[in-house]
């Protein structure tokens, strides 16, 4: 069964088509990736799903219910947690308080939210830094904080926007393990946008490839890397000289 259904979604910015008639599904309990060259429309699709933008055409459903055109906070309440490609920590608040803000969505009570936030922080390896201000974190830790905050809202679907970018290979592998555990152990459905192919190949069960706002391929990682359309978009067309 599909948790997320994107059907014929289009979005233009002043006549420029960022996303054109894109359709894809994310299966319940799946771990899918959205890849494509720069400017392919990946982040626009994320913003359409997360409610930052409303699609010009098409439908987006979460567990069968229409969510396109709703506000980001309503979409969060519907069960989608997201991270930002350019991290947006609450810089003046402590690491714990950052996550408490997210945890206050499922937990109405502040002390219960604190407990939930502390567990998530521990899980993501930020336990030693919980009382530091978020502004003092390094970039890899800020990316972890993004994930922790989104997880704290108890999402059904987690959208990860380039959380591996800028990480060293060992840090990247740690993050891969975290997401794998979340997906396998906790049954969390994940959709990730990623440039780091090392992470995508290690994690994703299915991949959707975007190019110029259109879905040009979809399938398992093995299928996708052999797809001629994908090779062409990434490596360029062979031309006779």
């Amino acid at each position, binding site marked *: 069964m599909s948790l997320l259904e994107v059907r014929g979604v289009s979005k233009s910015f002043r006549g420029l088509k960022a996303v054109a008639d894109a359709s894809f599904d994310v299966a319940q309990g799946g771990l899918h990736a959205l890849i494509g060259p720069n400017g392919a429309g990946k982040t626009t699709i994320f913003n359409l799903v*997360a409610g*930052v933008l409303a699609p010009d055409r098409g439908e987006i459903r979460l567990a069968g219910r229409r969510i396109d055109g709703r*506000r*980001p*906070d309503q979409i*969060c*309440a519907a069960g989608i*947690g*997201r991270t*930002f490609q350019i991290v*947006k*920590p*609450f*810089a*003046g*608040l402590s690491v714990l*308080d950052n996550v*408490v*803000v*997210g945890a*206050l*969505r499922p937990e*109405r009570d*502040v002390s219960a939210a604190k407990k939930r936030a502390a567990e998530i922080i521990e899980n993501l390896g930020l336990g030693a830094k919980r009382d530091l201000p978020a502004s003092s974190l390094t970039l890899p830790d800020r990316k972890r904080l993004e994930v922790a*905050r*989104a997880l*704290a*809202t108890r999402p059904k679907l987690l959208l990860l926007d380039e959380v591996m970018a800028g990480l060293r290979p060992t840090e990247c592998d740690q993050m891969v393990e975290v997401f794998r555990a979340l997906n396998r152990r906790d049954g969390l459905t994940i959709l990730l946008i990623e440039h780091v192919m090392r992470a995508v190949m290690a994690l994703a069960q299915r991949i959707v490839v975007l190019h110029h706002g259109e879905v040009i391929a979809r399938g398992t990682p093995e299928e996708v890397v052999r797809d001629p359309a994908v090779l062409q978009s990434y490596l360029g067309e062979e031309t006779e000289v």
Partner: protein
Amino acid sequence: MSRPSLALALLGALLLLLPAVAGPYLLSVATLILFFAYTGQAWNVMMGFAGQLSLGHALYVGLGAYVSAGLFARYGVGPWAGLWVALAVCVAAGAIIGFLAFRFGISGVYFALLTIAFAEFTRIGFDHIAVLGGPGGLFLKVSQREAWDLANLRGPPAMFYYVMLALAAGALALCGALLRSRAGYYWQAIRENEDAAQALGINTFRWKMAAVMLSAGMTSLAGVFFAFYYNNLFPEQVFHISRSIEIILGPIIGGVGTLFGPILGAAALTLLGDGITEFLAALGWEIPGVKQVFYGCVLLAVIMWLPHGIWPPLAKRLGLRR
């Protein structure tokens, strides 16, 4: 009892006993400090907690003052009934400003300009309301009384001091509770990054509206106090932008977003400002505007050396969190 709460209890006891030992001048200065501590606390809810800069808080002081004083002077409605009307009018004014700004995406300096605009055109508008005295002012009957008439808010300076003390203490307790509550977390999240706050499920429009309306409502009570304490109101005075600036200097110097910053800032500014004026007067120098020059210098010094205000570094030294 922990040391901070012991210190707070001691300060409270001291403030309760003050009228017994202080002369009329000292008592009036203390009342003024509490007034600015209270209005600063109210402004801090909006700016310090939720990150919405208001440069027009004189609007709420003025509306609160005029509504309650007008009802009292013209229709004989007592201040305890009138304050509810004043409260409702100010909350509605805050809601209108907030709705216009947040519905149409006005933020940052443009929001601040909107708050100034509302205060300014209300000031000009009140010059033309004849029933409230227009530019000539609205006056309440002054009668020097020794007996406390709390029901009509008429009485000796000590009574006004205690009323203001109760308001300031109530505001401190309210803000302390709010900061630890869900509202406090949500407001601070909005202040730090609104997009991220919304992505975490916070209805930012609703919570920003709540901050503005609460701040406006709290400030309206200071207006009611102002009217019955000073007994005269002029649009050019109560609504003037210099009033708005005076309200925000305390929390800025004490520490925006902190619980004790507004109190500390109000005390430091009022004591030093009045102290300098008095000191120079004692030397036989009457220099008009010396207080404003002094405010400017203090503001410069704080911005340069204590960009987060006096309270955060002081709290750190005392080993407190906020």
